[in-house]
């Protein structure tokens, strides 16, 4: 709080005038520093609408220290001339004077003096004029008297260049009465306190207004990762649709379940070193259901179940190779095989959302690992129409209209299902998509590295909104 006396004096002055007054004028007339008046204005402003103060700024010209000296004693060149006697003066002596150097060159260029270099006893200076007009001083005197406007801009700038004049900006307040103007000040409370509530004193007090323009304090809280928030929503959608979650907690899978059981031939490019991560330790899987394995071998190499097969030499060694699963469909295959071993077939709806791995070239939308979302329905007599229908319902829940671009769908081949032992007539429809792709679309992220992995900016995690896929 500024000096109370000064604040009250200021209020009295404001009361007396009609239009308002300038803080600079108040300072001058009170003979106090302008900053003190500014302090009083600010503390009055904090009290609410007692006064209104509008900031103003004005520019004016002022003499510099050197400028003041010249206004008083004359320009350096004029002083050089006046200090030279009729018989002249040695140059070395002139140079010893404070104004000597600057004054000498200016006086020379004005042709007010001459230099006799060959003079006996060293170079000597003589006056060439008796009377002179000291224009520089005259101009500075004008400015000092507050008549700077009589000078041309060019002249002022020239003096500014000689560091004799400077242009200064003066800030002041134009002070007028506010809507709650009063010459006496009551102190405003900042906050409601326990005591005020207990004593009821809040009824008499005035409270300082809040600044509703400001932001609240940033809370110190924990956050869920946006991709995981989207995963939660997808799980929710599947559960709402009656799908049971598959156990996908097995990143390492044999080629048998990942490829062979899905009727993917052993020479398929997806099984190439360039696309799939193979394991060196543990390099091979053991323990396959032997009779099923034999049926898989046969349908690949010889055909059967209505298929011609691929007619190649199917090798157990290829099937045994351990890999990081390239899709969660490997788990779907295990689940469907398990289903086929039941005494009596029961229809199922399965889903999973988990990590899969591809040894591919990395770019803005591809990483070596991503999350695959998969849905599977197995029942007697499912049709293409059912697949279209269920996809429509699923993608409707996502709020995605053009779903064709984010996923794949289809019916599993008989060469996959019949060797498992599923009854003829059971069809299995399935679809899959990545979790990252729809999340990137949803949150407008272009580079997958900004969403997944340790290089993610935590601020993005802190700032991410709740995930409602359908809105």
């Amino acid at each position, binding site marked *: 709080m500024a000096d109370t006396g000064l604040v009250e004096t200021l209020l009295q002055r404001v009361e007396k005038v009609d239009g308002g007054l300038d803080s600079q004028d108040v300072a001058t007339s009170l003979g106090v520093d302008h900053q003190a008046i500014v302090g009083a204005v600010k503390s009055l402003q904090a009290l609410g609408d007692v006064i209104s103060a509008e900031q103003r700024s004005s520019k004016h010209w002022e003499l510099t220290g050197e400028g003041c000296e010249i206004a008083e004693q004359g320009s350096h060149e004029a002083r050089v001339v006046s200090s030279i006697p009729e018989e002249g003066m040695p140059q070395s002596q002139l140079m010893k004077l404070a104004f000597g150097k600057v004054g000498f060159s200016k006086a020379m260029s004005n042709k007010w003096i001459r230099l006799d270099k060959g003079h006996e006893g060293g170079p000597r200076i003589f006056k060439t004029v008796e009377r002179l007009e000291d224009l520089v001083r005259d101009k500075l005197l004008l400015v000092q008297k507050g008549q700077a406007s009589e000078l041309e801009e060019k002249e002022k700038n020239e003096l500014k260049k000689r560091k004799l004049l400077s242009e200064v900006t003066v800030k002041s307040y134009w002070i007028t009465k506010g809507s709650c103007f009063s010459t006496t000040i009551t102190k405003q409370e900042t906050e409601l306190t326990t005591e005020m509530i207990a004593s009821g004193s809040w009824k008499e007090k005035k409270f300082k207004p809040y600044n509703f323009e400001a932001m609240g304090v940033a809370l*110190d*809280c*924990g*956050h*869920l*990762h946006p991709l*995981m928030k989207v995963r*939660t929503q997808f799980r929710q959608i599947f*559960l709402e649709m*009656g*799908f*049971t*979650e598959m156990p996908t*907690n*097995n*990143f*390492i899978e044999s080629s048998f379940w990942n490829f062979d059981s899905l009727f993917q031939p052993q*020479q*398929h490019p*997806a099984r190439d*070193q360039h696309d799939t*991560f193979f*394991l*060196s*330790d*543990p*390099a*091979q*899987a*053991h323990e*396959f259901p032997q009779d099923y394995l034999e049926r898989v071998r046969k349908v690949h190499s010889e055909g059967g179940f*209505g298929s*011609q097969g691929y007619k*190649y030499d199917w090798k157990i060694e290829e099937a045994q190779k*351990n890999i*990081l699963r390239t899709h969660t469909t490997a788990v779907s295959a295990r689940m469907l095989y398990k289903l086929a071993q039941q005494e009596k077939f029961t229809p199922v*709806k399965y889903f999973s959302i988990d*990590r899969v*791995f591809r*040894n591919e070239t990395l770019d803005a939308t591809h990483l*070596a*690992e991503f999350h695959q979302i998969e849905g599977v*329905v197995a*029942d007697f*007599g499912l*049709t*293409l*129409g*059912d697949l*279209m*229908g*269920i996809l429509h319902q699923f993608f409707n829940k996502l709020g995605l209209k053009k779903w*064709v671009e984010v996923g794949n769908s289809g019916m599993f081949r*008989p*060469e996959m299902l019949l060797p498992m032992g599923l009854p003829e007539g059971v069809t299995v429809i399935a679809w899959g998509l990545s979790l990252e792709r729809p999340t990137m679309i949803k949150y407008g992220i272009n580079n997958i590295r900004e969403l997944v992995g*340790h290089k*993610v*900016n*935590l601020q993005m*995690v802190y700032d991410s909104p709740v995930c409602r896929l359908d809105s």
Partner: protein
Amino acid sequence: MPTVSVKRDLLFHALGRTYTDEEFDELCFEFGLELDEITSEKDIISREQGDTKAEGASDVILYKIDVPANRYDLLCLEGLVRGLQVFKMEAPRYRRVSPASSEPQRLVITKETTAVRPHAVAAVLRNITFTQERYDSFIELQEKLHQNVCRKRTLVAIGTHDLDTISGPFTYTAKPPGDIRFKPLNQAKEYTAQELMSLYKTDSHLRHYLHIIEDEAVYPVIYDSNGIVLSMPPIINGDHSKISLNTKNVFIECTATDLTKAKIVLDMMVTMFFQATDLSVPGTVSPHHHPAVCFLLWENILEPTGQYVHSDYPHSICNPQPFFGISESTEHIAQLLTKMCLRSEVMSDGEQIEVEIPPTRSDVIHACDIMEDAAMAYGFNNIPRTTPRTYTIANQLPLNKLSELLRQDLAAAGFTEALTFALCSQEDIADKLLKNISETRACRISNPKTAEFQVARTTLLSGLLKTVAANRKMPLPLRLFEISDVVLKDESKDVGARNNRRLCAVYYNKSPGFEVIHGLMDRVMQLLEIKPGQGNGYHIQAADDSTFFPGRCAEIFACGKSIGRLGVLHPDVINRFELTMPCSALDIDIEHFL
């Protein structure tokens, strides 16, 4: 999926009309293809090598189209046009014919080839007329087939020759590399096979194929009756018989380790270029010529394994009704299939359809493939959507249910969820945590492209510490957690490894904050309804662990079992993760709480 790149205007010319990019994209979708990219040679060079290099390159617009991996018949312009035009044209029928005035050609396969590349099939295309574009497409198709179905020439290698420069019968045999000597394609002098292998070591294209036969005792080779070398598959052809724009009759040989694939490849080469044959030459066309049906002068040669007859197409019988879920007449479905170039007739029972599969469609191996074509012709979007009546009760996986619930409460406890990679370097899980790799039970990847993918993680801690390191500029303290799987070797599993669900958290600040991470552990136990105490409760006791600062690590026991550790990290761990401040961590196995 393989990508085929075709010149847009050439494609439109062949299709007989132009499309906007959107219309063409739509057309592709109807046929299960995808218009992947619209570009030009200039664009490609400028993107890969910069604008200056691209100056003067062709700016003819190219369409890059993704085709399904098993549709080898769509790998060239000719095939794509046929695939996209099926509705408009009557299915071409292909027939093997004998030459008008001479004996069919023969290719004799000797038993020496069994050791290295045992199969070969061959055909002759007669009266062909190459334009520059068709010639380019012919060469490109070979290359596409080599890269895809031929699996980079390992399964099948194709050689094409000007028949008029050589004379049959031809012999496919195998010889020691020192005994093979010929002038290879586009070389000025003769080389032995040995010399060729070292010559091509530095060839940017051919060096990728050398390994296929390099270490064999004998190399495959094809001679004509005068001892001229046609080719040394799968590496290089002879210069003598090379084809040119003026070639009229082409001899095509496919040598292989997989006979089925060899036949598919030969069928593709022959059927894709039937349009190039001149049907007006007498003797080219069979007397049974019907104006709407194209016949092809095409000899198949196979010795000694027997006759390979293409004119007998496989017939497939299928019953379409259950598949569609619509009540379309069998006649209509037969018509749709015929439109798709699969000639179909309704059988006498009125329910089944007999379908003729042309040699271009090697992908059709089951009735379901035919039904897919019928659905395509019907239009996927015209199939009425139905809801399956399948009644099921949903269940969550208990492990995931627990993880989901804990995640919510860890965030409520003020910790932020990180999402880190399951693959990492060996250094991340061993050296940087002051552990020996042998004690980690880590699974190793045999073919990582970079060190980031050497092993599957055995702990979540390194990922969290890397996340902290990448976020050092964020206000302190940093409180992070992750609940996810690590992978451990486990002999008891069929694949020799299993996942393990872990909960890991770190607290990073100017002071170690052991009490904070300890408090978090207490909170987790509270959430899991485990009370402090020995026996059925939980307690911690001092433990030695090289990752942690000596005397600042404790083992956590719950219900009598060790479930994890907590403590202040060792300063060397902090340094190795490029961190500067103290850090405490919690790492537990939550599978105990199922």
